[in-house]
Structure formats: C-alpha cells, structure tokens
C-alpha cells in the first residue's frame, strides 16, 4: 500500500466519520467542531488532488471564516445540548430515512455501474490525457506555483464575467445582511 492510497483511505474515513458526527451530535457546539474537522479533511483531499490553491482557500474561507460565523452564532444563542435534536413524526422520519438511504444506494450504485459506461470511458480518456500531459505539460508546469498560476489566468480571462458577477453578488449580500441584522422582526415589527 503506497502512501497515496493510505492517505486517501485515512482522509475518507476522517471525512465520513466527522460528517456523521455533525449529523449525530445533539450539542450544536460539537456539531460545529465536527464540521471544522470535515472541512480540514476536505482541504487535505484537495491537496492529494493537486489543487493546492483551492485547498488553501478552503481552509481560510470554510474552516476559518464560515466556522467562526457558526460558532459566534451558537455562542450568541447560548444553546445547550438539545433534548430533542431530531424531528418528530415517525412516518415522515421513516420516509426521510428511506429516501436518504435509497439516494445513497442509487448514487453509489450508479457510479459503480457507470464505470463500464460513461465514467469508465472518461477514466480511460483521462488516463490517456494524463499520460499525454505527463510527458509535456507536467514537466512544463510542475509544482504548486504553476498550477495556481494556470488557475489565476483562467479565472481572470475565461471566467472574468462570472468573477465580476460574484463580486456584485457579494456586495448585495453584504448590504442585505446588514439590513437584516438591523431589522426588528420584519412584518411583525411593532
């Protein structure tokens, strides 16, 4: 077993385990901590996939900013461990579980079955591409710096419109959030 393989299985177990912990902990603080753990795991997975820059952003934005936001809110609410963490309603609960279970089964089954068809071909193509790219591209753009540079060029040329649109969106969100925070109960205002 090579280190790569070991790393993948280790991280996969970490992510799934901490993901389940988010779901199962009744105390929101523990859930939030498990979520942070998951985020870090995902960032590590990104690194194994050579997406160094994205992994960094993941750590800063998710594990940093978003998690702080969550923890802040939990602190604000002063929430203790909940007596009833899950929704009541036996029938709807059963239906939800069945739906989730079926969905997971279907997705995993679909991926494995699809190996022979779509994904399989893609893998072969990808393998061929990798083989081709390995010879030329990887030598030219070896290392984290080159990959990040490539990402930056694509972001500011090919996807510049989406990038600008995101900027507008973030501005709108910032204004909206402030407005929400200042409001005194919306339509129920006295």
């Amino acid at each position, binding site marked *: 077993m090579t280190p790569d393989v070991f790393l993948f299985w280790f991280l996969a177990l970490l992510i799934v385990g901490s993901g389940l912990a988010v779901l199962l902990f009744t105390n929101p603080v523990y*859930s939030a901590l498990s979520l942070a753990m998951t985020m870090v795991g995902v960032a590590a997975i990104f690194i194994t996939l050579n997406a160094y820059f994205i992994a960094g952003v993941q750590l800063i934005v998710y594990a940093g900013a*978003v998690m702080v936001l969550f923890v802040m809110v939990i602190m604000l609410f002063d929430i203790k461990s909940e007596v009833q963490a899950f929704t009541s309603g036996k029938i709807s609960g059963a239906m939800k579980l069945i739906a989730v279970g079926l969905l997971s089964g279907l997705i995993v089954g679909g991926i494995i079955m699809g190996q022979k068809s779509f994904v399989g071909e893609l893998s072969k193509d990808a393998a061929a591409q990798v083989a081709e790219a390995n010879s030329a591209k990887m030598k030219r753009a070896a290392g984290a710096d080159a990959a990040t540079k490539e990402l930056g060029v694509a972001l500011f040329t090919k996807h510049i419109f989406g990038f600008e649109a995101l900027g507008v*969106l973030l501005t709108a969100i910032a204004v909206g959030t402030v407005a929400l925070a200042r409001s005194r109960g919306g339509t129920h205002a006295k």
Partner: protein
Amino acid sequence: MPSSSFLTDISLNHYLILSSVLFVIGMAGVLLRRNVIVILMSLELMLNAVNISFIAFSKFTQNVDGQIMVFFVMTIAAAEAAVGLALAVAIFKRFKEVNIKFFEHLRG
C-alpha cells in the same frame, strides 16, 4: 465485492463515492435535524461534497475549469451561510426560537 484492486488503485470513482456519501450525510442532516444552525451546517457539508467531485474531475481530466467552479461555489456558500445565519439571528431575536418546525408560522 471490493477486490484488492479496489483498495489499492485509487481511481476517480473513489473520490466520487466519497463525495456522494458526504452529500447524503449532509442531506440527512438537512432532513432530520431540528436546529436551524445545524441544518445550515449540513448544507455546508453538501456543498463540500460537491466540491470534492469537482476537484476530482478537474484532476482526472486535467481541466482547470473545475477548480474555478469550486472557487465560485465556495464564495456563494459563504454568502449563503452569512444570509442564513443572519435570518436565524433575526428570528431568534424576535421569537427566541431556533427550531425549524417553528418556521412553519412564517407561511402566509
């Protein structure tokens, strides 16, 4: 049955299955938890799961567009978390309540 090659050859499928499992866990959280904040966390889990598959595809097709998409998703996820939490705070301030069930009263 997972053969030994399944355990040793880490292919695209492994990442996809990891992604889908994480997605389903997040979904179960959204469906089953009562606390709005935990539901928002579960949403983040789902978005992360999608990000994993994006990056995996990007790597296995040597296409940088997947990473750009992840970049966008992250931005929007952060925005969504900000708005969602702001809403939760506003409602909590008014009604002292974080149970999603309580939000039924918001319908007309």
